[in-house]
């Protein structure tokens, strides 16, 4: 089987600060990969480079066999197939919940309103927000906003979903409702790359855990390997902070 995403020697600097120092990563279809690591280790930047919200300086990103770094690649066409969920939700403030979900399918894929709304309602019900389709997106709680954001991404029927710390802006009581939706999505076989600080989630749901430190992938493997018996001292040190109280 071909990997859906293949990253090779990816490098990225912000000014003089080198954030990514040669990243190699492959993600297979249907795989759930969690990227963990300390803040500033380059996790989010890596994720944002995958759908070109940041342009990497050098290296290659192949998505379904097409090189995203090639200047002739139609990025908008590929971005449609890559869903993204942000830490800050980023719901469109000028739209209600349903319109948030139907806007992109209608403008980008030219789908008829009725059909787009049916799809949207299906996905909104899937994240447990069937009763909120006409709500003002600004007035929802954080957890509800993030679930709308997931439904919005799903409405484009992406082949892979990127999650950029989806629960970091939520209070501990609300985190669960978003993680449940993500677990359900993983169970349905969605390919997912999740940048997260939720170690329990990473341990339970992911097929592979990637530990990033200081711009490189230091260690990767099954959750059992990484959490159970980390090879690198830095991984052990990082995880001890999270696992102490378990």
């Amino acid at each position, binding site marked *: 089987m071909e990997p859906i995403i293949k990253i090779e020697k990816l490098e990225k600097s912000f000014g003089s600060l080198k954030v990514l120092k040669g990243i190699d990563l492959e993600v297979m279809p249907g795989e759930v990969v969690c990227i963990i690591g300390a803040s500033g280790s380059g996790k989010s930047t890596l994720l944002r480079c995958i*759908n070109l*919200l940041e*342009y990497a300086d050098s290296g290659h990103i192949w998505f379904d066999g097409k090189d995203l770094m090639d*200047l002739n690649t139609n*990025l*908008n*066409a590929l*971005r*449609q*197939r*890559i*869903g*993204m969920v*942000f830490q*800050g*939700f*980023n*719901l*469109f*403030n*000028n739209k209600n919940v349903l319109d948030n979900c139907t*806007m*992109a399918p209608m*403008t*980008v894929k030219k789908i008829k309103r009725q059909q787009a709304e049916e799809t949207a309602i299906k996905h909104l019900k899937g994240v447990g927000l069937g009763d909120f389709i006409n709500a003002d997106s*600004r*007035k929802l*709680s*954080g*957890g509800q906003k993030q679930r709308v*954001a997931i439904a*919005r*991404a799903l409405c*484009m029927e992406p082949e892979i979903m990127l999650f950029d710390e989806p629960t970091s*802006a*939520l*209070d501990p009581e*609300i985190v669960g409702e978003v993680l449940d939706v993500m677990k359900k999505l993983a169970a349905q076989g969605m390919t997912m790359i999740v940048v997260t600080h939720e170690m329990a989630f990473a341990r339970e749901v992911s097929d592979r855990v990637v530990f990033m430190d200081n711009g490189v992938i230091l260690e990767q493997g099954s959750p059992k390997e990484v959490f159970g018996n980390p090879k690198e001292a830095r991984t052990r040190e990082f995880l001890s902070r999270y696992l102490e109280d378990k």
Partner: protein
Amino acid sequence: MKKLVNFIKRDHPYVYLTGAVLGALGIKMASMQPSQLSFMGSSPAIYILAGICGLFILMALAALAVKLSRWKSFSATAFKSPAMLKVSRYFSYLLCVAVLLLFIDRPLMSFAAMANSSSSADSMPDGFVPSMFYLLHNGATFFRMGIWTTVRIALLGTLIAFVLALFMVTLRIQKPDRQDNDLVRFLKYIGRSFASIYITIIRGTPMMVQALIFYYAGFGIFKGTGMSVTEINQVWSFFISGLITVSLNSTAYLAEVLRGGIESIDHGQTEAARSLGMTNWQTMIKVVFPQAVKNSIPAIGNEFIINIKDSSVLSVIGCMDLMYATTSVSGIYFKALETYCIAAVFYLIMTYFSSLLMKAISRKLDTNVKELPSSN
């Protein structure tokens, strides 16, 4: 309504003091000479109303005497009993009505009578305010035409400027994209520079100078096509050139307003739209502009109000706005100060009501929705 009932039922402080002052004013007004328009004249009604004022003053004096003699135990006296408080309260309401009636009958009606007689006078009456009424009445055609022109120029000018500003700000915010070829990069650079230079020049020069330049430039262009002066005046009228001046001037200011509005939109909105596969252009049209315009509405309303006032400089090119009309009236009657005071009042009325309207619109559109303070 409920508020009013509550107000009437509530005890108020300083009833005697305020009542006594009002009563004194009432008696003073009742002793004024009745004007032609006075509806009570010297009838007994006046004496009854003045009597109410007098009675209240007497009651207030009595209260004062008791208060002075029993400084410490005043609250134990009859004046502080609930019944007396109630009586004094309702009496004070009666007093208010009486003073209001007196006010309408004497000062207000004499003012109206003065305005009436000055307006219909055959020659300029004496005194500042009577002259103003005389000028207002005799120059009414001028003022009406001037106000109508000013309103049209401000309204149309702001609308046209808004549309142009949308184009201008679109040019202004063009940034070269990673995938653009050299031609697109060059065009974007040209567009951005044009917008930036335009905004700098327009904002850095007075509108009066712009008006003169546009007028004479337009005149010259039409002259070049071989038209006669009469023909040019029909096409390139003072109104049209004034309107174009205001529009082009406001475009620069509104473009900056809109740019501020666009920059105030969270970058995450753009990222979310782009991550869904929307193009830069679709993102602008569907996500950024609607929010930016909505946020800019108070500032756009402000620009409209500024245009009402600043269109006065168009009188230099002979545009028949309120300022030009005022100057004409003052030239006819040789009363400059009075005429310009009338113009000031008209401008004030226009700007004040426009600002009320703008506030109502922003409230209706809910421009600043209060978001929950926490991210959750």
